[in-house]
């Protein structure tokens, strides 16, 4: 009985040893591939009213994942993106976050696309201590009211340029052109609200009076009533700040009403789909990615911009947009943080905060404990719609 058991045990052990030795050589080779991938979450508005922004963001993230994994991954591990679509709806963002954080156990999250959703996401990621690199522009609520140099959030970062810098650029341009009376019209979304706040706050610094302040809901399609009201106030310039489709209609409807003043748009205008015949001459601040071909080769961003633009356009056959760039910056900063520190949630957070001189598509990022965006007004350049395309305003004067 015992002898038999003993024999069986010995045989089993022998087998195990043989198998183990036999496999050990293969094991070494496979170890690289068998390391579990680094899971990074992403939430974009791939569908819904911000689909024009979210679609390119998703494409970009997938493209970069492919490039990184083809080059052997990060620290010898592949990255695995888990992409969720929030359809631009805040409730969906919250649900997607719960899934990514608690059931997928991602180490960091990119997105969301829209500002309102970004604000919701910031709170959740902060509580769960998961680093979030937001692709949404509104930033106002991320700082305490009293002290704008102190981020309320330790774990939240963002890649789009600051709204305040956008407002500054627009007003600088107004001042240079001698405009003192402007009308503002904004979408009632997180992005539009934040813009409206910034514009109203900054105007007096440039000696500019806001003579009309109108808003419209995300699904607005006929802006004539608001424009009629604005026209009666006789402003010298009209500033529209929104991401919703209406921003593509406003120029045409203003033209129909024979409004001839200069129209400015926010950095949310950076999508070719908004260019219509009537949009000719619209000015807006944007990152240099939009006007890559006009960027001076001596500019530090030149190489990054041209490579990303050609990669994206060859792969997807559509023009690259600013929003695609936001996803590029976000994912690369996370990857760089993993390279610099490790792939734990806190490690990535520390790595992100220590980001210096990262040349991205939106500008050159220098993060610090008090600045989780890392860009300044230099990240913006004035872009003009000319001949049916976006051009660098200075280059085509």
């Amino acid at each position, binding site marked *: 009985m015992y002898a038999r058991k003993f024999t069986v045990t010995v045989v089993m052990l022998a087998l195990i040893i043989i198998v183990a030795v036999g496999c050990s050589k293969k094991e070494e080779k496979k170890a690289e591939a068998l390391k579990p991938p680094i899971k990074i979450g992403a939430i974009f508005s791939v569908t*819904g009213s911000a689909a024009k922004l979210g679609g390119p963001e998703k494409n970009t993230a997938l493209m970069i994942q492919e490039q990184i994994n083809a080059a052997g991954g990060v620290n010898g591990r592949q990255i695995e993106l888990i992409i969720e679509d929030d359809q631009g709806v805040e409730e969906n963002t919250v649900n997607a976050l719960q899934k990514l954080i608690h059931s997928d156990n991602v180490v960091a999250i990119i997105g969301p696309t829209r500002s309102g959703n970004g604000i919701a996401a910031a709170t959740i990621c902060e509580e769960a201590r998961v680093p979030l690199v937001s692709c949404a522009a509104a930033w106002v609520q991320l700082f305490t009211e009293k002290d704008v140099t102190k981020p309320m959030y330790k774990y939240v970062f963002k890649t789009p340029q600051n709204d305040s810098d956008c407002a500054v650029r627009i007003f600088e341009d107004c001042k240079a052109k001698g405009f003192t009376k402007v009308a503002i019209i904004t979408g009632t979304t997180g992005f539009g609200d934040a813009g409206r706040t910034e514009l109203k706050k900054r105007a007096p610094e440039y000696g500019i009076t806001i003579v009309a302040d109108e808003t419209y*809901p995300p699904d607005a*399609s006929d802006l004539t*009533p608001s424009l*009629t009201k604005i026209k*009666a106030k006789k402003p010298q310039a009209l500033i529209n700040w929104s991401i919703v*489709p209406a921003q593509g209609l406003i120029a*045409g409807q203003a033209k129909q*009403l024979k409004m001839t003043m200069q129209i400015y748009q926010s950095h949310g205008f950076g999508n070719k789909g908004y260019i219509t015949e009537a949009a000719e001459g619209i000015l807006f601040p944007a990152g240099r990615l939009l006007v890559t071909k006009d960027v001076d080769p001596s500019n530090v961003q030149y190489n990054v911009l041209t490579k990303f633009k050609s990669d994206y356009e060859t792969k997807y056959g559509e023009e690259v947009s600013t929003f695609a760039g936001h996803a590029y910056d976000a994912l690369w900063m996370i990857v760089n943080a993993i390279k610099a520190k490790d792939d734990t949630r806190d490690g990535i957070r520390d790595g992100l905060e220590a980001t210096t001189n990262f040349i991205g598509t939106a500008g050159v990022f220098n993060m610090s404990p008090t600045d989780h965006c890392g860009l300044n007004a230099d990240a913006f350049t004035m872009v003009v719609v000319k001949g049916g395309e976006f051009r660098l305003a200075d280059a085509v004067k």
Partner: protein
Amino acid sequence: MGLDSYIQLFFSGITIGSIYAMVALGFLIIYSSTGIINLAQGEFVMLGGMIAVTCYHTFHLPLLLTFVVTVLAVTAIGALFEFTCIHPLKNPSVLGLIMITIAASILMRGIAMFVWGKEEHGIPTFSGDNPIQVMGASVPPQVFWILGVIFTVLVILFYVFKYTLIGKAMRATAANRTAAYLVGINVRKIVLLSFALSAGLGGIAGVLLTPMTLMSFERGTPLALKGFCATVVGGLGNPAGTVIAGLLLGLIESFVTALISSHYKDVIALFILIVVLFIKPSGLFSKSEEAKLKKF
């Protein structure tokens, strides 16, 4: 603001109002013949816009032909929807039917998103973009197209309902299905026809609206909501009242935006709806005795 601004606002309001009125009439026709509220009504408008975009940009049809083909196509979609989803049901409950229309609306939106993508599409205006001056206001020519076509459609509809056999059959079905069936009216056909007609009206609205405001796959739902408001305010069952209510809603939106604040446009429009329903639950233009006989 001077008089010219008021004229401008009037035209803007009457334009969007007439679109609401068309959607509202679509609701009304289907409600009359079946007693259900077809929540896919807005999607017919959206499909009208989208199919027109395809006809114009992909098949390069002239605008007039685009208009005709689109309206016929949407009419066919409406008929198909009735034939496949509503027709086969034995003893359907009203609630069940309404659920089916919600499902159809989601399905149409999904299909439209796959076919046309997520962006906004447009077609050129029917007769250029040079605004016509009306007492100091600049009115886009498309506005006159919208008003003209919709007014024509209304006249034809009223004529059909009042004087033709088929129109009388539809009215009879709306009044009492069983009785209509007993006097030899083919109720099944009338229901099919009402869906086709509603869809066609939506399609017309869609083609007219797209040059002015572009069209995307999710534009239908808000239009359906406003159209439904107009139907209710007009008192379910009164075509003239429904049209007036639609125009009023558009005018209110337009004037509220300019005179009070654009922030409250939708709030005030819907608030007025609630007030109307409090004061006169049967709607502005229908008798309360009639309303008592209705399912809603």
